[in-house]
C-alpha cells in the first residue's frame, strides 16, 4: 500500500476532517517533549471512538504499517516519537468524561481526557484524581496510563497504576477488549497491570475506569530553606525515618530557584542552596503535631527558615512555581535537557554530590527540581543546542548521573519512561534474560511489532549507552509551556 492509498483508506474510515497528511501540518507531530530526535509520521489520524481506533489499527495491521498513539505529546522520553513510515493515532478528540460514579468513587474516562480536567470536574464534590504530573494541565490520562505517570503527590498515594481499575484496549491487531474493569481483581493474569506503563507497545488505551480519591480535610504546606544541599537531603530521609508520610516532599536547588523566581516571583530566597516543599495532608486534628515533628527534623538539619503557606492561594502559587519549573529553566540557556532517575531516598546526598561533580567535570549548569521523597531526581542540564560539543557533553553527563543512580541501587527512570531516549540504557539495570521476558510479552501482544516499535528494548546490546550518546542535539528543547 503506498502512502496515497493508505491516506485514502484512513479518510474512508474516519472522514477527511480526521486525517492530516500535509507535511507542514505534520511538523507538530515530529516529536514529543523529548526533541533530540524527530521523525514525521506519514499521517496523523484523530479517531473519536474506540471503534474508530480499532478500524484504523485493523487497516494498519493488515498493511503491516507501524503506528504510535499520542495524547498531548508532553512525554519526556520520546515515547510517542513516530516510527519510520508510521501513522500517528492522536487521541485528543476522545476527551469525554463518560461517567462519574461518586458513590463508588470511580470514573470512566476516554483516553484523551486531560488529567487536570478530571480533577477539576470532580473537585466541587470533594474528589480528585491523584496522579498529578507537572504537565497535568495538558497531559492526557491515556498518556498517564501508557507511561504509568507519577507527580509530586504520588509519594503518599501511589502512581497511575495504583489508581486505575480497568482499561479498554485496542490490541495491535485491532481487537477491542477490556483488561480489568469497573470492579477490582479481574480473574486471571493482571493484564491491566501489565499494560499500564507499557508505553503504548502492547495496545492503545481508549477508555479507563479510574479511582477518585476524597480530597483531604486539611493541608500544611511548608517551604523550608537550607544553606547546604546535604542538609536538605538529610532532612528528607529524616522526615521519612520518623514515620511521617508527607503527601509531597520536593527539593529545588539554587540554580532552579533562580530560574523559578525570575519567572514566577514567588519569593524564594535567592541565596539559599536548596529549599524543600513539604506538604502534609489529612485531618485537622493531629496535623500540627506532625508539622512540629517535621519542623524538628528540619531544625536538626540546620534549616535556616521554615515558611508556611498562609492560604490556598499561596499554596497554589507555590505548586504552580514548582510544576512549571522546567519551563522556567528555559530562561537560563537556549536549551535544556531534563533527566529522570531514581535512588533510594537515603542516597539523595550521594546522588546530589555526583550531580555537582558531574556538572563541574563537564562545565555544565545543572539545576535540580525533584521528588525527593521518593528519591526521584530530575537534573535539568542547561546547554546550547547550537554547540555540538556541549550537546555531546550533556548526554555524557546525563548518562554518568544515571549510571550513578544504578550504582546506588536505583533506576534509570522513575516516571518519564524508557521511550526512545533510554533504550540503550536498559542493560544497566536488566540482564539479557530479564529483557527477553519483556520481549516475550511484546511478541504475545504484538506479533508483527507494529504498536510503537523501536521503544523500550536496547538496539545495541554490547555497548551500554552508546546509542544515545551518538544522537545529534540539533533542536531546541520545547519548553513544557
Amino acid at each position, binding site marked *: 500500500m503506498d502512502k496515497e492509498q493508505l491516506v485514502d483508506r484512513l479518510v474512508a474510515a474516519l472522514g477527511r476532517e480526521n486525517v492530516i497528511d500535509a507535511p507542514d501540518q505534520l511538523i507538530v507531530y515530529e516529536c514529543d517533549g523529548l526533541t533530540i530526535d524527530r521523525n514525521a509520521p506519514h499521517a496523523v489520524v484523530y479517531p473519536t471512538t474506540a471503534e474508530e481506533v480499532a478500524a484504523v489499527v485493523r487497516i494498519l495491521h493488515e498493511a503491516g504499517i507501524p503506528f504510535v498513539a499520542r495524547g498531548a505529546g508532553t512525554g519526556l522520553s520520546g515515547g510517542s516519537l513516530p516510527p519510520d513510515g508510521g501513522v500517528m493515532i492522536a487521541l485528543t478528540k476522545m476527551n469525554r468524561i463518560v461517567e462519574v460514579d461518586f458513590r463508588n468513587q470511580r470514573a470512566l474516562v476516554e483516553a484523551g481526557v486531560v488529567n487536570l480536567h478530571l480533577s477539576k470536574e470532580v473537585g466541587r464534590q470533594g474528589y480528585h484524581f491523584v496522579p498529578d504530573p507537572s504537565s497535568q494541565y495538558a497531559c492526557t490520562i491515556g498518556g498517564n496510563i501508557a507511561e504509568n505517570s507519577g507527580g509530586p503527590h504520588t509519594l503518599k498515594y501511589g502512581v497511575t497504576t495504583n489508581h486505575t481499575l480497568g482499561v479498554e484496549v485496542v490490541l495491535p491487531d485491532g481487537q477491542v477488549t477490556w483488561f480489568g474493569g469497573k470492579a477490582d481483581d479481574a480473574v486471571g*493474569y493482571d493484564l491491566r497491570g*501489565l499494560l499500564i506503563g507499557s508505553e503504548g507497545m502492547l495496545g492503545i488505551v481508549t477508555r479507563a475506569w479510574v479511582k477518585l480519591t*476524597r480530597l483531604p480535610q486539611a493541608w500544611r504546606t511548608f517551604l523550608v530553606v537550607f544553606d547546604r544541599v546535604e542538609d536538605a537531603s538529610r532532612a528528607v530521609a529524616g522526615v521519612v525515618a520518623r514515620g511521617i508520610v508527607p503527601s509531597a516532599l520536593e527539593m529545588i536547588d539554587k540554580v532552579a530557584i533562580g530560574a523559578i523566581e525570575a519567572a514566577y516571583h514567588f519569593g524564594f530566597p535567592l541565596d539559599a542552596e536548596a529549599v524543600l516543599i513539604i506538604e502534609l495532608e489529612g485531618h485537622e486534628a493531629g496535623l500540627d503535631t506532625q508539622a512540629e515533628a517535621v519542623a524538628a527534623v528540619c531544625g536538626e538539619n540546620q534549616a535556616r527558615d521554615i515558611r508556611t503557606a498562609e492560604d490556598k492561594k499561596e499554596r497554589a502559587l507555590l505548586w504552580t512555581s514548582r510544576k512549571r519549573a522546567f519551563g522556567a529553566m528555559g530562561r537560563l540557556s537556549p536549551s535544556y535537557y531534563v533527566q529522570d532517575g531514581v535512588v533510594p531516598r537515603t542516597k539523595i546526598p550521594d546522588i546530589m554530590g555526583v550531580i555537582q561533580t558531574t556538572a563541574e567535570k563537564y562545565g555544565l549548569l545543572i539545576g535540580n527540581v525533584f521528588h525527593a521523597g521518593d*528519591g*526521584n531526581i530530575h537534573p535539568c542540564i542547561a546547554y546550547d543546542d547550537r554547540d555540538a560539543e556541549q550537546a555531546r557533553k550533556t548526554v555524557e553527563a546525563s548518562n554518568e548521573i544515571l549510571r550513578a543512580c544504578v550504582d546506588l541501587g*536505583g533506576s534509570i527512570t*522513575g516516571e518519564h519512561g524508557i521511550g526512545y531516549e533510554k533504550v540503550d540504557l536498559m542493560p544497566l539495570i536488566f540482564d539479557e534474560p*530479564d529483557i527477553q521476558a519483556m520481549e516475550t*510479552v511484546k511478541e504475545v501482544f504484538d506479533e508483527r511489532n507494529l504498536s510503537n516499535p523501536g521503544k523500550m528494548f536496547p538496539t545495541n546490546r554490547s555497548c551500554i549507552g552508546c546509542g544515545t550518546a551518538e544522537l545529534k542535539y540539533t533542536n531546541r528543547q520545547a519548553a513544557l509551556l
Partner: protein
Amino acid sequence: MPDEALHSRLGSLVEGYAPASRETLAAHAVDGVVPAAVVAPDSVESLSATVKMASEQGYTVIPRGGGTKMDFGHPPSRADIVVSLARMNRIVSHEPADQTATAEAGITMAGLQAGLGERGQYLPLDPPHGDAGTLGGVLATNASGVLRTSFGTARDMVIGVRVVQADGTIVKSGGRVVKNVAGYDLNKLYIGSLGTLGILAEVNLKLQPLPAAGRMIIGSMPGISAAAECAFRVLDSEIMPSFLELADPVTHSLLAGEHGADRGNGAGSGDAQDGDAQGGGAQRGDGRRGNDRTAPGFPLIAGMFGPEETVDWQIGECERLLRETGATGVTRLEGDAYRQALESMRAFPAGRLVPRGMQSGVTCRASVTPDEVEALYRLAEERCGRLSVGCGMLSHFASGHVAFVFYGERPFQEADYDGLAGLVEALRTASEQHGAFVVEHAPAALKERVGAWGSSRGNRHLMEMLKYRFDPKGTLNPGRFVDGI
C-alpha cells in the same frame, strides 16, 4: 514413573534432600493428586537448578509455600515434584529509612511482619492464613485483607521480584526503589498468577511505618441497607478509614466472641493449617459473650490508624454518622480488644468463623462495585436459606471485595453439590456484571462442576499465549489456573 532417577537427580541438586515417605507425599497431594517427590531448595540457585532439571526431564513442578491454599484452582493435570519454598525464608535486607525490604518468598507473613516490626515498619497486607501462609503464596494468589481499603493489594506494594522461570532461568523485574517505570511491569503479571508463569523467589517490598494508634468502632445497624448506606456516608466524608467492613450478624457475633472472650494470649491464632472443616474457633470461643457487647443488628466495622489525635477525631466523626444513619448500638474497641478483633477479622474466611457445631466446606470471594455488595449478600442469603446452608460474609466494602463462607451441620457431600453449584452460579452471574467470583476452598468435585475461576472475559487467548510462551512445556502448576492454564 522412574522415581529412583528423580530422587537421585534431586539429591544432587538440593542439599539435604531425602525421598519423602508415603505419608508425607500423601500430605502434599494437591486436590487428591499425589506427587512423586517433595523437595525444599535452600537458595534461588538451587531452586533454579531444580526447575531446570524438571523442565529438561519432563517433570511437572508444583510450587508450595505454607500449604494453606493448595486447594485453590483446579487439580493439576500432573504433579511430579512439589517444590517447597519453606527453606527460603529470610529477610534479605530491610532499609527502614527507605521504607523498603527484600525477603525470600518462603518467609511466612507472620515471620516477615515480626522481622519488619523490630524496626518499626510493616507490610500493609493482611490476608487470611497470615500465620502459616508465606509471602510467595500470598502473592501467587493475590490474597488481601482488611487493609486493602487504605493500602491496596500486593500489586500496590511489590516493587520488584526475582522469579525462576519454567526452564530454570532466573529473571527479575522492577527494582528496589519505590518509584520506577523501567521496563514492563511484570511484577503485576506474576502476582495472582498462581505460580503458572514462574516461581517467585525473592520479593522487594514497599513498607509503611507502624501506626502510632489504632482503634475500631462497630455500629449495629438495623439492616444491611442501613449498614451499606452508612458505609457510603463514611466513604464520602472526611474520615479516611483504614478499613471499613460489612459483616453479617452471625459472623460478627463470632468475631465478637473471639475478641470479647477473655481467652488470654494467642486468641485468634495458632491453628492456621487449612482448617476449613474444623470450625474450631467457634467451638472454642464463647460467641454469646461477645454478642452481648453490642445490640443485635447488622454490623458496620470501621478502623482508623495513625496519630492518636487523628484516630480520635475520626472515631468520633464515625460514631456521629453511625448514629445518624440509625445505629442501635455503637461499640468502640481499643488496646487488646481492638487487636484481637482485627486478628479474627483477618482470619476470615480461613474457616474458623462458623457457628458452634457447624462445618464449613466452601469459601469464595467476589469482586464487585461497592454498590453491588448489598444485593450480592441478599442473593447469597436468600439462596442459602432455600438450601438450608449457612452463609457468613465479610466485605472489605470500599474495594467491593466480599468473602463468603458457606457452612452446614456436616461436611458437604455429593448430594449437596447440585444446590451449591446453583448457589455459586447465581452469585457468579451477579458478580460478573462488573467483576469476578472465585471459589477458593471447596471440594474438588464441586470446583470441577462450577469452575473455580469464572470468566477471563474475552482475554483467554492472550492468557493462554502468555502461559505458552513463558512455560511452553507446561512445567509449572499445569491445569490449576483459569481456562485450564
